């Protein structure tokens, strides 16, 4: 450990973090001024990082990564059919911007957001811009994002745009350029928050000393704005997500939790008499604002994309009837069209009478003869792509730089430009500024773009004081995209003055407001039941497999009757016990993870991580575990992990309806599993050792010994595992719990009458209360399992249809 003095010395000597930091020639750097000196806004951060020394610094950055792993922050990377979840690639050193520069960005983006609103209102309104020759008709009429059903519909909220993002880059002259507008369903605001949390985990002391603008105020303003729109109508605010396979689903769930909005999928919604309703376990509940994270054309299979499987039939009709506000309005995505960038300067001039405060990247739409000529004449340094592309040119794999093409492709593209120029757009090749990335213990300059968010509030547009910087993995500008290894850094806007500290928690003296839980969407409830069922099914299977392998290890004769018999039983459950870790078990674990994945906003990150860890362990075991002893130990590990998951959920989940459905799923499955096992192992021709096996898989060995001093034969086993009201593994215990939960569900008792499901549970409970063990014959036990299965059907009919 070095002393502070030594570290101070190091900073001024040759070993400081920036000592061998060399900006690229001709490219502005965020940290170093052209004369090689630290920019003032950075000096405090870099000084503090130097003071920490390399070891401490590495430890702190590891802490940030650990936080992200623990919080389960991921995005989905597409490299195959389904895409894989990847940890969030945090670049640990934040980008520092001073407040004065931030004010310039704020002014520019506020102007731009207003301008975009005017343009989109005209496109879906009376189309003056086309008629006046300011926007070519083909950029609208041929545009897949021009949603004809939206023409002429005024947004219920009064505005098309409520939330936008902008991609900025710093040009060679040091000024900022707008590289792209994001108006469809901008992602990443939640990741900006997580970046902040993770970065400040590592650098909390430094963050505390510097006057960094907080992000919470921005989110509070937007939350209040959406609630404000909802207030004037019947129904709340929801976030509409395409579901767990979307690349930024984590963020949708995160933002929903953070802002207290319902996370909804298209399937959760139904349009009833022109009103959008959420299917919940308490019936249909209205919703009046949808913050949409789904591309507009997928939102309604009836009037938009007919092949959409994630939309809500009739949503367009509800919008037409003015009962729902979409954030942003369906069709706003047309503003992302790359060719529009060519018209922004003139549109701004004509519509506002002033110039764009932040210039747009130089763009030429090749539908115009002069523009086409310019692109062809400067072909080598042009990024040429589709006029209708919506991604950034530097990220788009379909966009090419003329100079980089082999001769035959070059000629082919030039020919197409001449023949169908209107389909193409040329943009000046981007040279981005660099910012320091911490690589292998040192800082290296890497190109970066800045993503900034704008939200409409009651007082107009606000700009998030921060955002995130995307940093390339190599000095090449095209490696910014996260799908290509780019990283994301927090953005600190620093002030000379202390800044206001805002949180989403109510301040002292503010009135405590209890937000009502809202109603549980039916789809979420369905997934919770299945999560409970699959978790329990895994547990039951693991218990049987453990007992099986322990006996196999003892006798080492797989032909022993009890072993053969157990294999047959497991086979009926879709589990092939002849492999140490059967695929049937892995599939049940996958199903549990899949159910949980669809409702990640509803339980804690810890619960999710426990489940993910269970799957990972099971998959690892599948490759190396051998039958017998080894498998027995492996099953014990899995059992412990399952118990860990159950414990986390049971102890931490608030007792809303959601928990009840999870509990119901668990009890249903356990009831079914135990009935089945008892029926099988107490049947007349069951092999020797069947009853011991039953006690073991029913986890009731100790209790049986205590309760029945002298073995009372098969009846004592049936008594303990079927009829005993106190044994948490008995069938009756499950039924009693089920009845308790069903009674408490919405509609469980109404006007003194039990729901159909609660009645069925009560009738089963009564039957078990008055039954004697001798009456529990094998057919009777089998029927009991079926009755519990029917109960699951009654619950589905009442709450999920």
């Amino acid at each position, binding site marked *: 450990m070095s002393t502070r003095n030594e570290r101070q010395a190091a900073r001024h000597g040759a070993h400081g973090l920036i000592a061998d930091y060399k900006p690229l020639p001709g490219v502005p750097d965020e940290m170093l001024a052209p004369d090689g000196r630290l920019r003032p806004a950075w000096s405090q951060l870099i000084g503090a990082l130097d003071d920490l020394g390399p070891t401490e610094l590495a430890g702190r950055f590891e802490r940030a990564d650990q936080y992200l792993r623990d919080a389960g922050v991921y995005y989905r990377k597409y490299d195959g059919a389904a895409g894989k979840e990847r940890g969030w690639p945090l670049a640990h050193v934040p980008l520092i911007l001073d407040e004065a520069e931030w004010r310039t960005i704020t002014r520019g983006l506020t102007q731009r957001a207003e301008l975009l609103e005017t343009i989109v209102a005209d496109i879906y309104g009376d189309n003056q811009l*086309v008629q006046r020759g300011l926007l070519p*008709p083909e950029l609208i009429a041929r545009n897949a994002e021009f949603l004809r059903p939206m023409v002429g519909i005024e947004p219920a909220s009064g505005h098309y745009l409520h939330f936008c993002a902008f991609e900025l880059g710093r040009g060679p002259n040091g000024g900022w350029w707008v590289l792209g507008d994001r108006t469809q369903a901008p992602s990443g605001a939640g990741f900006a928050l997580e970046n902040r949390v993770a970065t400040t985990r590592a650098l909390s002391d430094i963050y505390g000393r510097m006057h960094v603008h907080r992000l919470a105020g921005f989110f509070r303003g937007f939350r209040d704005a959406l609630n404000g729109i909802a207030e004037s109508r019947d129904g709340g605010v929801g976030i509409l997500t395409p579901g767990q396979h979307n690349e930024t689903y984590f963020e949708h769930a995160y933002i929903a939790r953070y802002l207290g909005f319902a996370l909804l999928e298209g399937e959760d919604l139904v349009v009833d008499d022109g009103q959008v309703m959420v299917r919940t376990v308490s019936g249909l509940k209205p919703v009046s604002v949808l913050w949409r994270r789904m591309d507009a054309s997928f939102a309604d299979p009836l009037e938009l994309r007919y092949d959409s499987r994630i939309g809500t039939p009739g949503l367009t*009709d509800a919008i037409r009837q003015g009962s729902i506000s979409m954030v942003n309005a369906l069709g706003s995505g047309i503003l992302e069209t790359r060719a529009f960038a060519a018209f922004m300067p003139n549109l701004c001039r004509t519509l506002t009478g002033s110039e764009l405060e932040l210039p747009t990247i130089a763009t030429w739409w090749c539908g115009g003869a002069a523009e086409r000529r310019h692109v062809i004449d400067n072909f080598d340094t042009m990024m040429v792509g589709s006029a209708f592309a919506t991604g950034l040119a530097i990220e788009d794999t379909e966009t090419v730089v003329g100079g980089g093409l082999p001769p035959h492709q070059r000629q082919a593209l030039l020919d197409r430009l001449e023949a169908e120029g209107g389909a193409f757009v040329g943009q000046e090749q981007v040279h981005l500024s660099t910012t320091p990335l911490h690589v292998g213990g040192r800082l290296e300059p890497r190109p970066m773009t800045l993503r900034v968010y704008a939200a409409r509030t009651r007082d107009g547009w606000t700009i998030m004081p921060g955002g995130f910087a995307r940093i390339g993995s190599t000095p090449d500008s095209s490696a910014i995209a996260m799908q290509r290894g780019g990283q994301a850094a927090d953005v600190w806007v620093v002030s000379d003055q202390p800044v206001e500290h805002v949180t989403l928690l109510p301040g002292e003296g503010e009135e405590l407001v209890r937000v009502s839980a809202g109603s549980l969407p039916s789809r979420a409830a369905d997934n919770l039941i299945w999560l409970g069922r699959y978790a329990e099914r895994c547990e039951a299977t693991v218990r049987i497999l453990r007992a099986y392998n322990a006996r196999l290890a003892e006798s080492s004769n797989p032909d022993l009757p009890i072993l053969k018999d157990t294999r047959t039983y497991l086979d009926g459950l879709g589990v092939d016990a002849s492999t140490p870790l059967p695929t049937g078990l892995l599939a049940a674990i996958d199903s549990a993870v899949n159910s949980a994945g669809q409702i990640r906003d509803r339980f804690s990150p810890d619960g999710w991580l426990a489940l993910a860890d269970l799957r990972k362990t099971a998959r690892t075991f599948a490759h190396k575990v051998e039958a017998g002893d080894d498998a027995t130990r492996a099953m014990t590990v899995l059992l412990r992990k399952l118990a860990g998951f159950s414990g986390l959920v049971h102890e931490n989940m608030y007792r809303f309806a959601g928990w009840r459905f999870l509990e119901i799923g668990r009890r249903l499955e356990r009831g079914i599993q135990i009935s089945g096992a008892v029926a099988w192992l107490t049947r007349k021709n069951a092999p020797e050792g069947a009853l011991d096996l039953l006690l073991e898989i029913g986890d009731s060995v100790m209790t049986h010994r205590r309760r029945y001093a002298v073995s009372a034969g098969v009846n004592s086993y049936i008594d303990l595992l079927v009829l005993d009201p106190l044994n948490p593994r008995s069938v009756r215990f499950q039924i009693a719990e089920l009845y308790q939960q069903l009674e408490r569900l919405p509609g469980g008792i109404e006007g003194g009458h039990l729901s159909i499901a609660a009645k069925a549970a009560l009738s089963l409970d009564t039957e078990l209360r008055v039954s004697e063990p001798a009456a529990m014959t094998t057919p009777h036990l089998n029927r009991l399992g079926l009755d519990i299965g029917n109960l699951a059907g009654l619950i589905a009919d009442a709450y999920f249809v």
Partner: protein
Amino acid sequence: MLYDVRLELHYDYDAAVHGDRHLVRVSPISIPQVQRVIAASLSFEPRPEQETSFTDFFGNLVTTIAYSGYHDHLDVRLSARVQVEDPPSPADLSPTLTGLREELSRLWSVAASSPQHFLAASPRVPLDPAIAAYARDSVASSPSVQAAALDLCLRIHREFRYDREATKVDTGPSEAFALKRGVCQDFAHVMIAGLRGVGIPAGYVSGFLRTIPPKGKPRLEGADAMHAWVRVWCGQHAGWIEFDPTNAMLAGPDHITIGHGRDYSDISPIVGVLRTSGEHSAKQSVDVVRVE
């Protein structure tokens, strides 16, 4: 010409469905100088719990129906009385293809009637180089856009075979073109793809044909079902002209229009989402009787 139109669509579901919702586009619209709808009534069985209607982007009349309960069939019944005009055949006022391009580049409009909407690929009509090459022959041998469209219309009629078994409702124009077979919808899509492929705006028309032909005239193909033909923008002066490639003729007093779109998907008689895994079967019957 005054007609009484009757349409019945009947859908049978294998399994009862619930909570479904449909858009229905079968009611004819009034179009100045083309036709006037005197009366129309549309009914459904079972009776929908909700029924609303609106006019879509292209001016078509759309009825939305919704059910929340279970049902195992759906009947749609339309009866309408429509007066169809019989204007004299238009003289050819259309420009050459180059002239048409010139006119289009000066046409700064995205109103529903603007030809700008009918140049690009649309959901059911992707642009196909083979069909474009086929259409180019018609352009090469014709003095004007209108003549080229008529030539293409006649060639499709001559070289394609009307065959109900060859294609299905979701067959694309490329496949129908390769088969040189199909029904009115296929011929219309092929003709649209060809015209757009050479830069001539073309759209889809859905409608009905008179069932019993006038004395001495042959019965028209497709008269016992809903029909489809093509409208072509032939320049500022000529405007939109309608061609029926199935019957090798201009649309005239025997054609009753339901509505317009870029292709079938914009004006399909029924769109809907069925909450069922089962199959359904459909039947339709059409009767168009001249009143006077």
